[in-house]
Structure formats: C-alpha cells, structure tokens
C-alpha cells in the first residue's frame, strides 16, 4: 500500500534526476579505458545548468517550430519514461496498448527534432535530419518485433506486465535475441558508437549532434537533457530483458536498479571504447540485423 504511493514518486524522481548521470558514467568509462582522468562524473549536470543560464542566439530563418522542438521532445521522452517500469515496479502509467504509445512518442519527438533541423535552412542539419528519419524506419521495425516477443511471452499488451514477464520465466533464447536486437536499437537511437559518434563535431559522421548545431542556450540544455533521458528510458527498458532478476525487497530492488543502470552505462562506455564507428552506408545493415534478431526471436516463440 505504502509502496503504491511511494514507488511512482521514486520512479518520477529517478526519471527526472538521474539521466545526466549516464553520459557522465559513459565518458568516465571511456576515459578510464583510454587511460585518461576524464571529466568529472557530474559534468553533464554542470553543462546543462550552465546552458540554462546562458542567453540564446536564434537564426533569423527559423520559426516557432525551432524553439518548440526541444520542449516537445523532452515532454514526449518524459511521458515515455512514465510508461516504462523501473526494476520490478509497475510504471506510474500503464494501460492496454501503451507500448504503441511508447514507440510513437519517440516518433513525435523525431518529427519535431527533424523539422527544427530543417527549420534552420542549413545543409548540415538537413543531412542529419535525413539520416535520422531514414534509420528510424529500420529501428522501429526492430523495436516492435522485440516487443512482439514480449507480448507473446506475457500475453498482455501493456509495457509493465510485458517487461516484468521475463522475471517469471527464466531467460530463454527468444528473450535474449530480442534483448540483443533492442540493445543495438538503443545504441542507434541514442546515436552512440558504432552508429554515430557523439563526440566528434565532424558533421559528416553525425546524426543527432548535427541536427542541433544551431540551438544554443537553454534550448541546447533542454536538448542535452532530453537525449540523456532518452538513453535512460531505453536502457531501463532493455535491462528488463538482459537481467531479469529481482530480490523481492523494494528498497533492495531500487538499489539493484540503480546499480544495473550504472552498469549499463558502463557497458555502453566499454562498447564505445572498443568499437569503431561504422561507415554510414553499413548502418542500415546493422539495424536490419537487429530486426532480424528480434524477428528470429519471435519465430522461436511461435514454434
């Protein structure tokens, strides 16, 4: 009873507060592997704070969409985050068919981000937007195939029971395949290596970063915050498939969740340190592979 009240609050709190930590962890890991000291763990928080205090420089070519985009993106991501259960605890919002809403919220965010990119009238932003929408076509298929596996596993159409289903069953091949596929999607959706390199400012390589070249000040802050949150939410989703364990004690489970999240960030960091970015023309193949993994998982479920 008490937890029914407190869990959603914790959920909300983590969702709002924790995301910037993940990029920090990732950067720290990469620095550690590279043998550097690296930026402080909380650097992303500082950056966002700094940006929010700054003034804005806005291109005269742009319209209201340019400024609405970061806000809407953040809002959509936040709402999506409220649909995903953290750890073994039900999500604050859950109802039949919310998985579709979850997927389409990111679509909404994408619509605004890419429109804002085109709004600047710069060729770089346009290029990034084109890549974003192109890759999304492939990754969405992968996501839904992965979710189909969970639907069939759980027999329900809401993210909370779906994602908590692996707890009941011991991890099987289909779930692991889906997890692998979704992990790839996670990397590409958050523009991490091997799909995209968030650190370079060489526009030729970039998808997400290049779309926000002309945002500045608070808007840029919102964008960074939003992308961190996206990473957080998707990681939380994938965790359910990768490590379907829980202790049973709420407090312990929350701690476990935190540990898992940080570990996840560490894993991403390791991937980034040990892998090179793919050539742009190979990315579709990678995403197709992700869809195939999930699809194969579904086929295994059926047979």
């Amino acid at each position, binding site marked *: 009873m008490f937890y029914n009240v407190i869990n959603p609050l914790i959920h909300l709190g983590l969702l709002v507060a924790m995301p910037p930590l993940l990029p920090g962890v990732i950067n720290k890991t990469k620095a550690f592997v590279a043998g550097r000291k690296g930026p402080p763990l909380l650097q992303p928080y500082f950056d966002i704070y700094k940006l929010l205090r700054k003034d804005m420089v806005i291109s005269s070519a742009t319209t209201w969409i340019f400024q609405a985009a970061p806000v809407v993106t953040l809002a959509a991501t936040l709402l999506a985050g409220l649909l995903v259960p953290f750890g073994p605890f039900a999500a604050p919002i859950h109802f039949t*068919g919310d998985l579709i809403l979850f997927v389409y919220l990111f679509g909404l965010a994408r619509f605004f981000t890419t429109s804002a990119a085109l709004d600047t009238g710069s*060729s770089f932003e346009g290029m990034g937007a084109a890549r974003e929408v192109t890759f999304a076509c492939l990754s969405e298929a992968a996501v839904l195939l992965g979710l189909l596996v969970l639907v069939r596993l759980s027999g329900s159409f809401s993210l909370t029971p779906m994602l908590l289903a692996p707890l009941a069953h011991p991890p099987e091949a289909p779930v692991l395949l889906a997890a692998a596929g979704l992990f790839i999607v996670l990397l590409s959706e958050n523009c991490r290596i091997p799909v995209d390199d968030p650190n370079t400012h060489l526009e030729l390589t970039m998808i997400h970063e290049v779309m926000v070249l002309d945002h500045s000040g608070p808007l840029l802050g919102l964008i960074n915050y939003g992308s961190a949150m996206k990473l957080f939410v998707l990681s939380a989703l994938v965790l359910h498939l990768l490590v379907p364990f829980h202790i049973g004690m709420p407090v312990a489970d929350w701690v476990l969740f935190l540990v898992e999240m940080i570990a996840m960030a560490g894993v991403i960091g390791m991937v980034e340190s040990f892998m090179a970015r793919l050539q742009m023309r190979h990315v579709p193949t990678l995403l197709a592979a992700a869809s195939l993994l999930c699809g194969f998982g579904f086929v295994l479920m059926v047979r």
Partner: protein
Amino acid sequence: MNIAIYIMLASTLSMAISGVPGLLFSRRSMTGQWIATLLNLLATLLGIVALLTFVSGGYHSENMAWPWTLPWGGFAVGIDTITVLFLMPILGVFLLGSIYAMAYWKQTQHPDNGRKLRFCWGLMNAGMMMVVLARDGVLFLMAWEIMALAAFFLITTEDHNPCVREAGWIYLIAAHIGMIALVAMFVLLRLTAGSFELWMTIPSSVPQGMTAAIFLLALAGFGLKAGIMPLHVWLPGAHANAPSHVSALFSGVMLNVGIYGLVRIGEIMTVPPLWWGATLLIIGAGSAVAGMIFAVCQNDYKGLLAYSSIENMGIICIGLGLATIGRTCHRSDLVLLGLGGALFHILNHSLFKPLLFLGAGNILHATNTRKIDALGGLAGKMPVTAGLFFMGSLAICGLPGLNGFLSEWLIYLGLLRTAIAAHVDTLVWISLAVPALAITGALAVAGFVKLFGSVFLGNKRSAEVDHAHDPGAGTLAPLAILALGCVALALFPELIIPLLVSAAHAWAPQMIASTASFGSLAPLQEMAKLNVGLLIGGTAFLLLLGIVRQQKLRAAIPTWSCGFARPVARMQYTGASFSRMLAQLFTWMIPVKPAVPPEGRYVPQPAQWTQDVPDTVLDRGLIPGFALVQRLLERFRPLQNKPVNVYLAYMLAILLLLLLALCF
C-alpha cells in the same frame, strides 16, 4: 417510417442539381456559383438532419424499395450505421470543398471550365451518396459509374494541359476496368444470391470457385477505386492534376467509396474463407509500406499527398482484413478492433487528407508551382496555412495527441491480439503486420517532415515564393474546421465509439459487440485523457517558452551552419536530397533515376542533382505492356487495305468455311 431515407434522398437530389442552374448563367457571373454553393449547403444541412434522425432513432437501419422500369431490380435504398459512417465524410468534405471553391475556383477567374466543374462536382457527390445508399445491384452500378464519369470530367477540368489529359485517360481506363469487374461481380452475385438485392449473404452451398471469383472481382473493382497497390496506377496522376479541392474530394471521399465496397464484400459470407482476410491484410500492408516509400520520394507535393493516400488506404485494408479474419475465426475482438479501427481511420483520413490537400491548394495558388524544391520558407509568408498544414501532417503521421494515432492504435491492438494465439494457429503470423505498420509510421514521419520542412521551413529556394501570402478567411475557414475536427476526434473519441460498435454489430451480427467490451479491449478514454494532457502540456510549454524567449533571446542572426561566411538558400538541403538516402535503400523497388553530375577533366563540371520518380507499376509495367499489345494487334491492319477482290474473297472464304463446318 423512414424519414432519414427521404431526407437523405432529398439531400442527394439537391446535390445532383446544384450545378445545373449555373449552366444557364453567363460564363462570367458569380450568380451560378452562389446558387450552387447554397444548394450544397442545403444538401449538407438536410444530410446532417437525416444523420441526426438516424442516430436519435437508435441506429435502426431502414430500407425502402420502389419498382423500377428497368428489366431487373428496383430502386432500393437503405441506411444503416456503415452507410452513415461513409455518408458523414461525403457531406462534410463536399460542403467545405464548395465553400473553398468560392474563393479558390471563382467562376469569374475560370470562365471556360467553372460551370462544367461545378456541374460534375454536384453530380459526383450525388453519385457517391447513391452508391452508399443503394440496396440494389443495378442502382449501385449506375451510381458508381455516374460518380466515376463525373470524376473523370473533374480531373480533366484543365484539359488544355497535356499532363492533365494523360492523367484523365489513365483514370478513365482504370475506372472502366473496375466497372467491368464490378459488373461481372454483381452478375455472379445475382446468380448465387438469386436477386440484385444488396447486401444479402450468399448461401454456404455455393461452390468455392464461385465465391472466390466474386471476391477477386470485387477486390479488383473496389480496389481500383480505393487505389490499393498495385491497382493504384491512376491515383497519383489524377490527384496531382485535378484542382486542389477536387483532389481533396477524391482523396478524402472517393477512395472511401472503394473501401465501402470492400467492407460490404466482407459481409456477404457468414464465414468467409481465411484467405479473404489474409489477402486483404497482405495487400493492405504492402500498399501501406510501398505507398509511403513512393510518397517519400516524390518531388511534387500533391503527388506526395496522393501516394500517402495509398498508404492510408493500405492501413484501412489491414484493419479490414483483420476484421474479416476475425469473422472467419469467430473472434469478436478482432472484428471490433479491426473494423472499428478501419472505419475510424476512414473518418480521420477524410479529415486530415482534405485539410492537407486544401493547404496544398493554398500553396499552389500562392506560388504557382507544385515542385517541393522550388519552395521553402513559406511559414513566414503564410503562417496560418503553415500552422494548419503542420497540424495535418502530425495527424496523418499518426502521432500521439491527434486523431490519426487513435485509429492506427486500434488496428495495432487488433494485430497484437493475434500474436498471442495458440501455437499452431496461423493467426500468429498475422501479427507480423505490426512491424510493417511501424515501418509505415516511420516512413510517414520521414515523408511529411520532408514535405513540411522543405516547403514551409528554411529559406526560399526560388522567386515563386516572394509574393506568397495567406489567402482570405473564406479559404482558410474550411481548413480550420477540418483541423478542429482532428482535435475534436482526438479529445472526444467516445463521440463515435457507439457508431463504431453498432457498425461492427451490423457488420457481424452473429458476434454481439457492446460498448463495454470495446472499452475493455481498447481504453480509448485513457488515450484521450493522455491526448488532453499532451495538448495542454504542449501549449503550456510553448507559452512558458515564449516567456523564456523574451528574457533570453540575445540576437537574431543568419543560420550559423558551421561558420559559413554567407550561407545562401541554394546551400539548403532540398527535398530530393532529403529523401535520397531512403530512396537508395529501396532502389530495388522504386527505380529513382538520379541525374549524375558530369565528370570534368580535372574538376567536376557544375551540376545539380535531380531525381525523377517513375511509378514502377505504371511506367515500367503497364504502359510498355499496352504499347506491345497494340503493336501486335496493328499487324492485322493490312487486312483492311486490299482491293475489293480480296474483300469478296473473305466473303467466299467464310461461306465455304461455314459450309464445311456443316459437314461435321
């Protein structure tokens, strides 16, 4: 007491004659147009009254039949929930279109085709009304063809333009092929059902081959009208070349009529074979994905909208196929979600597609070009159109917060339900349509970002944009009304849930469906609440942002774009380049031909990258095929170039031949 039918017939009549008085007035007077519009208004009001009487009467279907002096059949009309669901868009789009035309297609500005246009406009709508009202095969066919022919004359409004003529010709062939398929279909239907009365169910004793033939013929005939791939060949040209409010009517209403036929055909067998539904579903998924891929690659914004109509019809067909499968497997949930989703999506599509086409009309009117890459930065010059167009784009992409999402969501839920079917059940594979639908959604985002981004955002790419400005309120009002409709359906879906449920009930009476069970299957109210939240939150954020902007805005300078000294408009990413990467993923399906820059000796020559997007089925398949057949047949021509002796010889030959045949 069938009041609704009488009123509806009266409304139809006033539609049909709405264009007639105009023919009597001079080519340069607006009087005729005023009369026509008033008659249309009258027609729509009557229609709404009829709908209200029907709804207040508790959705009781009514039927009437008068004797007719034709060799068969009678003048039988009827009205039930499905009919009503299809009547609503007809009435709405019809009225808004004619109001829009008051400013968009003034008689004074189009003296030589305005009267013809309005005459056919009324006639076509009357035809569509009769199609959905008809309860007799022959009446149906006649109304159908009146609609089709009037549509032909609407397409060829500007027949001085060769492209328009070509589009009209292709449409006419397609329409006639469809007509012939339907004629055959109805004849077979009468053979099996015993009379031309519609829509009675075929007895199960009828042999398999017969029912299969009926279904396939219906699929061909209705599919051609609905523009499902690969029967879509006429659609892009027709929509792109017709006047914009006509395109809105076609896309928002005429395609629905094709779907209407498919809905009815699903009904004619109590337990249709599984492959009926499966075929519908596969074709639907195919045309959803393929249609949107073609759409993304278009360089003509009306063409893009046209192909996206194909995509939406595909989505509707997925829902329909799902419902038919539900009929086969006695799964009332599939019927509810599939049919409900399909019908809901039809309503939505008839809201946002006309909105987009009318918006396109405004653009065309302001800039005189249909090329996406000639525009840009229109949002500044025509903000209202831009805002409404943006709304339409969000809705048509099925993004949360607007109505498009809800209908797609219903279909998704239905498909997901098949994923948890028993192991050996073939139903499971149906759920593989889910990723297809997802891809469609993503592609839609790509396409409409391209459209909106390259037309309204960024900097202007050509001089056409310079003098663009928002049209008057008379032209904007219809768009605003449609946009409001989108929002209303998004916030209060419960308004039409009863309609959907009773439609499903009328469609599959053997599986009783109640509103309650619908709510448990798909919590539309929850979703609506979230939509409310989204909209309120969004607006709140925007207001807050406005404040922030006041304080934080430092300077407004040209785009930085990595420090280019003087970024010019031609440096922008064009629509063509935006879709190029996607197009390259699908070159196996759509042979986009990029014009490769010519190689210079040492430095490349100045060149620009363009792409032309042929329609694979039409330009690679049908047109060459027809040419080949004609060349073969022309071999026979010389038979008619002979002196009279040879003609006499033909006569002698046939005489001897027949006498010879006599011996056996």
